[in-house]
């Protein structure tokens, strides 16, 4: 009977341990099962374009194909012509600046810098035909390139001014059009900046053959989703915002659109979602397959060997120096950096005065701990060194591309002065004649390459005093990462003081006891 209370103690403690253990046992949720069922049903085309009379012919140009498309899809070109894929700009509200026209046409970056006066080269990735200068006709429906997105043969390819490769079999391509495929989106979105995975870090060729370790969503041994499964579209308005060019928190493709706001079994983990973006824990590393460019120093560009441009490659085959572009740093399996981000951003727009702070921020992701809309978000930070006019205090838009030597393009003439003059003139901006190179930073939120949940960022990678992933984020207390040196110091003194005092007391008691025994 005496021991009944102690038995109850045991029962109570085991109860606590069992409840504590159950909390972390999870089973597949209904939502996850539903996804698997939904994505097991592959899209079936409702129209076989090979059977359409309008496509039983050969096409001499991309424009003829577009005319054929519009013959049936009588209004679709208008949708495309209202989109960013076509306009390379849109009206957007920039917090702090008001409504501005913003897009590829007038933002700068710290890769190939900007589109102005380089249209003929850049428009390889324009959803149109014939953009070879600022004089492109954005109002001609025949200039719309339907095939660049809707090709399902994997053979379509564009060259200068966005014109299709003349060797292409446009008839076959037109007869097989369908929903955009991974490889089609990837043709441009994987290779921005002049090569595979140069820009994003989380968008690259590796996704076409991804395993679940690389990307749970796109993995061929997983859900095998294509881009448009998440980047859904209505009337050619495609969900998804990249903050290298976008400013507003709208029409984004989000994890929540499928997974909801609280998809975890554990309450504690769900509560993280108030301040932590899904990507932060679920994308521990990016550039998992191929290297991405982490730094680009334009100031070393222009060195020639025997009058000819050179390119030096590293062991992985990535250029570390190119006469036309300068020096690069590449990295694979990169741990992201983290910022508070509320979905709005500012950009360096062509002609903006450069603020005094260095490095110059080419884009600024807004957010802070105190802002209820902000979440901790993983980013790739690309660090550059690019041409700058110190007299006018503006970043220079150089003319890089030109068809022939003597046109002023840096990639042919290797002369910064004329490249700057030509580029700034074409952009309608002043140029003092002086240039130098200034350090810049650009922020690319990381959204793809989601790892299997077992590979998510572990609690202690952030909740640790040593080298926490969140070490750079200030303004809040985070258990495990933060402490008061004063309280910890005082506390340790109290605990070890109590221990030392107890031991000392015990020793004296034993000695006194021994002496009394000896005396007795």
């Amino acid at each position, binding site marked *: 009977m005496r021991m009944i209370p102690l038995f109850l103690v045991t029962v109570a*403690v085991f109860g606590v341990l069992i409840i504590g253990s159950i909390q972390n046992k999870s089973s597949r949720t209904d939502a996850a099962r539903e996804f698997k069922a939904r994505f097991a049903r592959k899209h079936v085309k409702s129209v076989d374009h090979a059977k359409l009379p309008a496509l039983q012919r050969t096409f001499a140009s991309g424009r003829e194909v577009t005319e054929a498309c519009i013959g049936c899809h009588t209004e679709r070109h208008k949708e495309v012509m209202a989109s960013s894929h076509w306009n390379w700009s849109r009206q957007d509200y920039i917090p702090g600046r008001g409504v501005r026209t913003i897009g590829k046409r007038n933002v700068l970056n710290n890769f190939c810098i900007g589109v102005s006066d380089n249209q003929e080269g850049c428009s390889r990735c324009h959803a149109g035909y014939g953009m070879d200068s600022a004089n492109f006709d954005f109002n001609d429906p025949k200039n719309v390139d339907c095939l660049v997105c809707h090709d399902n043969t994997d053979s379509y390819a564009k060259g200068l001014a966005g014109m299709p490769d003349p060797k292409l079999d446009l008839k076959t391509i037109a007869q097989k059009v369908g929903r955009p495929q991974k490889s089609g989106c990837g043709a441009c979105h994987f290779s921005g900046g002049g090569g595979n995975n140069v820009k994003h870090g989380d968008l690259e060729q590796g996704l076409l053959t991804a395993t679940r370790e690389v990307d749970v969503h796109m993995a061929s041994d997983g859900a095998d989703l294509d881009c448009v499964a998440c980047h859904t579209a209505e009337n050619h308005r495609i969900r998804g915002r990249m903050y290298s060019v976008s400013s507003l928190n709208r029409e984004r493709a989000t994890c929540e659109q499928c997974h909801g706001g609280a998809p975890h079994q554990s309450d504690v983990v769900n*509560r993280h979602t108030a301040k932590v973006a899904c990507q932060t824990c679920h994308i521990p590393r990016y550039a998992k397959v191929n290297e991405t460019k982490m730094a680009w120093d334009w100031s070393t560009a222009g060195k020639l060997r025997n009058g000819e441009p050179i390119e030096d490659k590293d062991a992985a085959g990535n250029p570390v120096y190119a006469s036309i572009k300068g020096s690069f740093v590449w990295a694979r399996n990169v741990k992201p950096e983290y910022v508070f981000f509320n979905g709005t951003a500012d950009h360096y727009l062509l002609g903006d005065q450069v603020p005094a702070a260095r490095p110059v921020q080419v884009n600024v992701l807004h957010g802070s701990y105190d802002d209820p809309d902000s979440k901790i978000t993983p980013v790739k930070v690309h660090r550059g060194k690019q041409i700058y006019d110190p007299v006018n205090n503006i970043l220079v838009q150089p003319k890089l591309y030109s068809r022939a030597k003597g046109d002023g393009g840096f990639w042919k003439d290797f002369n910064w002065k004329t490249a700057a003059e030509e580029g700034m003139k074409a952009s309608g901006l002043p140029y003092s004649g002086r240039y130098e190179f200034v350090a810049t930073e650009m922020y690319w939120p990381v959204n793809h390459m989601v790892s299997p949940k077992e590979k998510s960022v572990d609690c202690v990678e952030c*909740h640790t005093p040593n080298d926490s992933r969140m070490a750079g984020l200030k303004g809040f207390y985070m258990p495990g990462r933060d402490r008061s040196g004063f309280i910890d110091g005082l*506390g340790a003194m109290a605990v070890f003081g109590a221990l030392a005092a107890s031991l000392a007391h015990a020793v004296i008691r034993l000695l006194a006891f021994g002496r009394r025994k000896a005396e007795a």
Partner: protein
Amino acid sequence: MTNVYLYKGFERFWHWTQAVLILLLGLTGFEIHGTFEIFGYRQAVAYHNAAAIALLVLIAFAIFWHFTTGEWRQYIPTRRFLRAQFEYYVTGIFRDAPHPTRKSEASKLNPLQKLVYLGLKALVIPVMAISGLLYMFVPHTARSVALAHTAGAFFLAAFVVSHMYLITTGETPLSNLKAMLTGHEELKTEPELDGARLPEPARGQA
């Protein structure tokens, strides 16, 4: 010697459950704090939260018990023999001097214990419970809440260390432990009651 039934069934259940829960809370809490690694962070958080709820339930029962039985009076502080008790630990104990106060059912705690346990119950445990609940239910806990919780944890850790030593200072090194396990303790019945060994009068109690 007389055998006194000192600790009732509920009291022992409460004491030992609290002991284990506080030990678990301490280990998991300091793991969450980043002091060491035992269970793994995720498991530590789960155990910490489960143990915290269990302890709150236990405390609710204990409060009820203390008030319905009148046992709360055990913690009314007194200055009588406080100095004598302190001197006993500093010198008397080494000379095998008698305890300055006698333990009885009506007065289980010596004056120093009354003071320390009152501090625990009135200050430290409430601070831990309130800051812990804020931690658990209010998102993005403020730094001050976190630091109060940490300071209380250090205080409790220092208490537990001292407590585990001081329980060896009973009539025999193990008599206090045995009493808390079985409820019964053999107390000396010496006929000569000098002033200093009178049992503490239990105020306001019949």
